[in-house]
């Protein structure tokens, strides 16, 4: 068998599968987005051109859910980075003694978002949420009913992000720790000999060396956060009054609850295009800085 045929044969199952289960559905998604088509009867459809897109782009509810998705992602990502990188620095300061610390930190790594969401809903829920009792006992809030985490429409989108932060800080911490351990020790040594203080060593050695790792963490986690569905769904189902409805959820509701396949497809197509553009931009940036 020639090399060429061997390569093609080995690729074939994956190409066929991804073609049928990813490329074809995506094509169908884009195709559907140009029709007025209902979920119950996808066979009868009316060509509407860009009307679905026009409606999506002018819908207040969709716009709001898109903004909410960005707020949620920025909030979650910021705290995951601060806590995760902070923990990684702490672990690397006690490098050899941090084995157990890191083990406990690793435990939530593979937990389902459903469990994390359920758990935090239980911690935050009105009346029996233990977090508020804890805060009240510490004197941070006046009484256990003071903060309505999941029913106050002003803060609910940030409250539901707490579960995300809890769940993924460990990922950020362990990946950052691996990155920190990969920085050559003699770099610090040289900086120390040159008289650089601990803060300067952090600023001029640690941070620049960690840049690629942190950039990857931001991309991977950022994309995950923008796609979030289950974690919020289990906590609030998007409520109260859509105050925690993110884009994935909006598309899901449009399709399942309102049965509007055409419009759901149009917003899902825009969402997909946005994600690919974002990822492409991010990869391009990293690729350039890696070589620049």
């Amino acid at each position: 068998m020639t090399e060429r045929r061997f390569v093609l044969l080995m690729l074939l199952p994956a190409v066929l599968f991804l073609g049928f289960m990813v490329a074809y559905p995506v094509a169908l998604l884009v195709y559907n987005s140009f029709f007025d088509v209902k979920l119950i009867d996808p066979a009868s459809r009316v060509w509407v051109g860009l009307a679905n897109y026009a409606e999506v782009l002018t819908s207040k509810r969709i716009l709001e859910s898109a903004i909410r998705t960005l707020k949620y992602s920025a909030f979650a990502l910021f705290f995951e980075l601060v806590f995760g990188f902070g923990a990684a620095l702490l672990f690397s300061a006690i490098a050899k003694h941090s084995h157990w610390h890191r083990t406990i930190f690793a435990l939530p790594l593979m937990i389902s978002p459903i469990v994390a969401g359920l758990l935090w809903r239980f911690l935050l829920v009105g009346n029996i949420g233990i977090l508020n009792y804890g805060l009240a006992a510490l004197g941070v809030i006046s009484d256990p009913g003071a903060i309505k985490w999941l029913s106050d429409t002003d803060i609910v989108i940030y409250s539901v992000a707490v579960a995300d932060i809890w769940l993924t800080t460990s990922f950020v911490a362990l990946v950052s720790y691996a990155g920190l351990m990969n920085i050559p020790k003699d770099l610090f040594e040289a900086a120390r000999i040159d008289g650089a203080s601990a803060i300067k060593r952090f600023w001029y050695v640690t941070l620049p060396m960690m840049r690629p790792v942190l950039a990857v963490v931001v991309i991977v986690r950022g994309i995950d956060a923008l796609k979030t569905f289950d974690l919020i769904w289990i906590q609030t189902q998007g409520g109260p009054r859509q105050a925690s409805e993110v884009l994935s959820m909006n598309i899901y509701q449009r399709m399942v609850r309102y049965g509007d396949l055409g419009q759901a497809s149009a917003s899902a197509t825009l969402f997909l295009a946005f994600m690919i553009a974002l990822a492409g931009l991010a990869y391009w940036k990293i690729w350039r800085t890696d070589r620049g």
Partner: protein
Amino acid sequence: MADRAPQDAGKVVINAVALLLVLSYALPYVYLVSTALKPAVDVQQIPPSFFPNRVSFENFGTVIGTAGLPQAFMNSAIVAILTTLLSLVIAVPAAYVSALYRRRITILFLLFALITRMVPAVSLGVPLFQILKSLGLLDTTIGLVLAHTSTAVPLALLLMAAFFEGMPKELEEAARIDGCSRFGAFWRIMLPLAPGGLAVTALFSFIASWNEFLFALLLTSQNSKTAPIFIAEFNSVYGLAWGPMTAAAVLYSLPVILVTLVLQRQIVGGLTFGAVKG
């Protein structure tokens, strides 16, 4: 290593802070387990207590006795096992040639796999619903396995490609000189040397499927409903039945935590790989 100056007091403080941080990080999950172990009447007492006054398995009994729950766990396990097998069968050969036979087509292929990882589940789920419905595969195990495999394959591909890249290409060449066909070199020489990579990839595919929610919510209803859907519905049907819900969540997540504990090194390695590669 000259950094070990006599800063013992500082080290003790850092150690203590780190320990405190780690323990408070574990607290929420400990509370979940501790709630599940409370007698049913104590679960919703006001004010709540952190530890059970008396350990009871009442909640676990209720959950296991709930019609449909054992079946949902069974469905989850079957779907996850089939997803793992299918995605390995599909992804491993492709990952092998992508890593060892670098040419334009394999690079394009890897790029395609990377892009598919960006596709939001909901964007895939909307058309998949229609496709599976027309094939009569809605609410079947096979339908859900296909959907889960569509996200598991790109992940498995990138993990295995990174793994094969770490293997010496000379080995394959030596096998060929000794008379192996290309496929023989892959099947009889290279693959048996990669049990670690296969195990990590299998584990990731399994857990990704075990944890998956949105596809299961969209594509199943009665027959092939999985555990996370069951747990989520528990929530709405029984109102605030927190006792059984926490018990179900513990049953659902504890196996994953134990696996993480045992295979921590490999999992962190795989995640770092995943993070760096894709």
